[in-house]
């Protein structure tokens, strides 16, 4: 009964979504207040029904209702509670339902928090989000119904993929989806502005906190995914340039560009048409990501079994969204005029450069991701594009970006002189070079790549700190600091996070030690001052798996540094082996040990030993970025009543605020 209620609720949600997209948009065009008034209640009603549907699927998991095909395939009576809850989004159908729920949540949030935005605008925004929702609900109902029944019901389920039975992966998809789907808000605002023909700084101001919120989730989601891959896949890598990773990274890059260009649009009224285009691209790339993951056209860790009908549906949906918005853009954009001009040396120019670099970098990733698909579609053979392509293209494009962050964020709007920046940036630069030259001395070998990366990261951090210092005046530094808007601290923190991230990837990729060994009990291996001793294997039993647990003792200068217990699990239902790596985490190094397989009867095992310097800084940097975004989004001025403030021309060129 409960699954049928879920399906019924989903159909009702679809009907409401149709109303939510048709009536308010028509009402906004005719300026009919009662039609416009439909938007908000429809948004809340849609959330209610999608939530009911989602709740029903969760209930089916919790009650082990194996007559539901999806539950039978992704659950088991011995599955722990947390994975019964997270198992709902463990495979295709359920994760799409989560997508729809996330969209309904964002829609309701816009309806709730947009009291200061004119009703016509809100009606259009919610209408556009309704259209997106119609597309996804149709997709679920026609190609991927999670409530499908089977009779007779199997006695037990096939269990959740063991790879997904992990706390990191339990939170990673919802985070990522909040980010992906969050860009639908920026998209809806852009389309609504095009529909209304009113692209002004007010539109940019309304759109900014939403875009930031989506960006924060996406940043955290990608970082979580990278961290999960690091410890769960057992290879010790943190980024593989896997097509599915790229699928989440491309919207992130374009979204980052969008945040920056929105700042210029809001403050100076420039780049309007470009900003709209970025909003369209960011959301289109999110959809493309969903298509790449769900259609099964790619060979990837994350790919699910193929169903061509699904891929075709998303492809058509993508074509409608991208084609429709670009057509609307072509029709309306010529009427959009950017107001202010700016100098070659100005914050606008800096933001433009940032945008160009980010978008070009995203385009090269897109090229590398889609190239194999194009070649295959043309019948020219099966190829794959490996990490060397991405590394050799991506790093030369993004290193200048990191180098210019400090300079760009200190430039004034409209017109500035580079000479003015020599004095505040001289000391940070000297300090970065000095420390950057010294840092690699603490490693086994002196590598110039590490020097370069270290200087780059430190320079970013110091330049940003100097930027904050510059905002204060002698004698009243404390007071000036207290008056600095929170958004400035948010921006600075996010840029510091970038610096930390750069240092992390440089040192990890330069100084990691990776060793696959054959070890018998008592064998030792020494690297980087650490001695790893293999002490043998014990058997354990988990709730739904058997485990062979190894003990590896790590000794540094005669003292115990860590005792690591890597596992080799066999999940009973699917008879699937899983490697659980053991990690001793530290701020400056991770000790990483994973078990391969038993090699003979004498207790010898294949063992993987890694020493990963500064690997934590990668995720730490990403978290700092996300936290910076949070600080920015909570700035007071977004919470203020902004209607009249937005109409005011912003001409405060000398005192740059972000």
């Amino acid at each position, binding site marked *: 009964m409960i699954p049928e209620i879920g399906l019924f609720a989903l159909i009702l949600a679809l009907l409401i979504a149709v109303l939510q997209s048709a009536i308010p948009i028509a009402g906004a065009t005719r300026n009919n207040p009662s039609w416009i008034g439909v938007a908000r209640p429809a948004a809340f009603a849609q959330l209610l029904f999608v939530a009911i549907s989602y709740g029903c699927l969760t209930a089916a998991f919790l009650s082990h209702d194996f007559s539901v095909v999806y539950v039978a395939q992704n659950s088991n009576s011995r599955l722990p509670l947390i994975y019964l809850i997270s198992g709902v989004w463990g495979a295709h159908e359920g994760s799409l339902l989560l997508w729809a729920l996330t969209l309904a949540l964002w829609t309701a949030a816009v309806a709730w928090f947009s009291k200061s935005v004119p009703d016509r605008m809100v009606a259009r925004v919610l209408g556009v989000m309704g259209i997106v929702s119609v597309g996804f609900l149709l997709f679920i109902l026609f190609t991927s119904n999670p409530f499908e029944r089977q009779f007779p019901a199997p006695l037990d389920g096939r269990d959740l*993929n063991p*790879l997904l039975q992990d706390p990191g992966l339990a939170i990673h998809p919802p985070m990522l989806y909040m980010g992906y789907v969050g860009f639908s808000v920026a998209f809806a605002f852009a389309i609504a502005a095009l529909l209304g023909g009113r692209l002004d700084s007010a539109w940019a101001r309304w759109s900014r906190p939403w875009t930031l919120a989506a960006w924060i989730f996406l940043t955290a989601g990608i970082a979580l995914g990278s961290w999960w891959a690091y410890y769960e896949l*057992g290879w010790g890598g943190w980024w593989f340039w896997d097509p599915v990773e790229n699928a989440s990274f491309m919207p992130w890059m374009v979204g980052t560009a969008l945040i920056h260009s929105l700042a210029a649009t809001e403050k100076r009224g420039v780049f309007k048409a470009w900003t709209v285009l970025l909003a369209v691209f960011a959301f289109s790339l999110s959809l493309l990501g969903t298509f790449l993951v769900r259609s*099964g*056209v*790619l*060979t990837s*860790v994350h*790919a*699910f*079994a*193929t169903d061509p009908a699904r891929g075709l549906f998303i492809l058509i949906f993508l074509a409608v969204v991208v084609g429709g918005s670009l057509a609307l853009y072509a029709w309306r954009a010529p009427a959009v005029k950017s107001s202010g*001009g700016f*100098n*070659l040396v100005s914050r606008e*120019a800096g933001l*433009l450069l940032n945008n*160009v*670099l980010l978008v*070009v970098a995203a385009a*090269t990733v897109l*090229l*590398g991701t889609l*190239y194999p698909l194009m070649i295959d579609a043309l019948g020219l*053979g*099966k*190829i*794959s*594009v*490996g990490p*060397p*392509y991405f590394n*050799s*293209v991506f790093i*030369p*494009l993004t290193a200048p970006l990191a180098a210019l962050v400090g300079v760009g964020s200190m430039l004034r709007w409209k017109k500035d002189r580079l000479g003015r920046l020599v004095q505040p940036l001289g000391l940070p630069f000297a300090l970065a070079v000095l420390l950057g030259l010294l840092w690699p001395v603490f490693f086994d070998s002196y590598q110039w790549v590490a020097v370069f990366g270290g200087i780059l990261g430190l320079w970013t951090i110091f330049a940003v700190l100097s930027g904050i210092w510059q905002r204060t005046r002698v004698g009243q530094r404390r007071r000036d600091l207290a008056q600095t808007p929170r958004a400035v601290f948010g921006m600075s923190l996010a840029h510091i996070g970038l610096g930390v991230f750069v240092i992390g990837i440089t040192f990890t990729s330069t100084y990691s030690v990776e060793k*696959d*060994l*054959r070890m018998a009990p008592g064998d030792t291996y020494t690297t980087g001052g650490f001695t790893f001793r293999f002490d043998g294997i014990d058997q354990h039993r988990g709730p739904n798996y058997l485990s062979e647990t190894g003990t590896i003792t790590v000794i540094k200068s005669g003292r115990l540094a860590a005792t690591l217990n890597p596992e080799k699990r066999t999940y009973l239902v*699917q008879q*699937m*082996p*899983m*490697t659980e790596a053991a990690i001793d985490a530290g701020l400056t190094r991770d000790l990483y040990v*994973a078990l*391969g*397989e038993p*090699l*003979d009867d004498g207790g010898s095992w*294949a063992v*993987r030993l890694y020493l990963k310097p500064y690997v934590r800084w990668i995720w730490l940097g990403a978290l700092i970025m996300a936290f910076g975004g949070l600080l920015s989004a909570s700035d007071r001025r977004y919470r203020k009543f902004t209607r009249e403030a937005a109409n005011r021309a912003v001409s405060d060129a000398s005192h740059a605020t972000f």
Partner: protein
Amino acid sequence: MKPRRRQRLLLVGLLVAGVTVAVGLALLALQENINLFFSPSQVVAGEAPANTPFRLGGMVVEGSVRRSDGSLEIQFELTDTAKSVAVAYTGILPDLFREGQGIVAQGSLRTDGLFNATQVLAKHDETYMPPEVTEALEKAKAMGVQ
């Protein structure tokens, strides 16, 4: 020309130059880092290049996996049901590597016909088959019928 217009021209010029460099870089890198995919039948027919890395995909032949004593070297055969190729690999295999499983190996062909794998990929889903492997199997089946 007005100074402002000249500056704007300079800006546009810089952007165009930057994008051109980036595109050139991307195409160059793409040319050097593409891995072609071949099936065992194609390799046996001599279609695969020697000494250039490519991807080989197929099913691990039952009973063909042999480990050498004292090291992490392993040998096995990959088949598309029509032909098979011997593969050598040193290191730790992925969890889902087992006999009968569809896998993709990255590496290059030695002159004696042995495929030297630098990386072995098996997917984390027991029902999942890499699309390349599925297609290679179907092709081999179709050839067998004729």
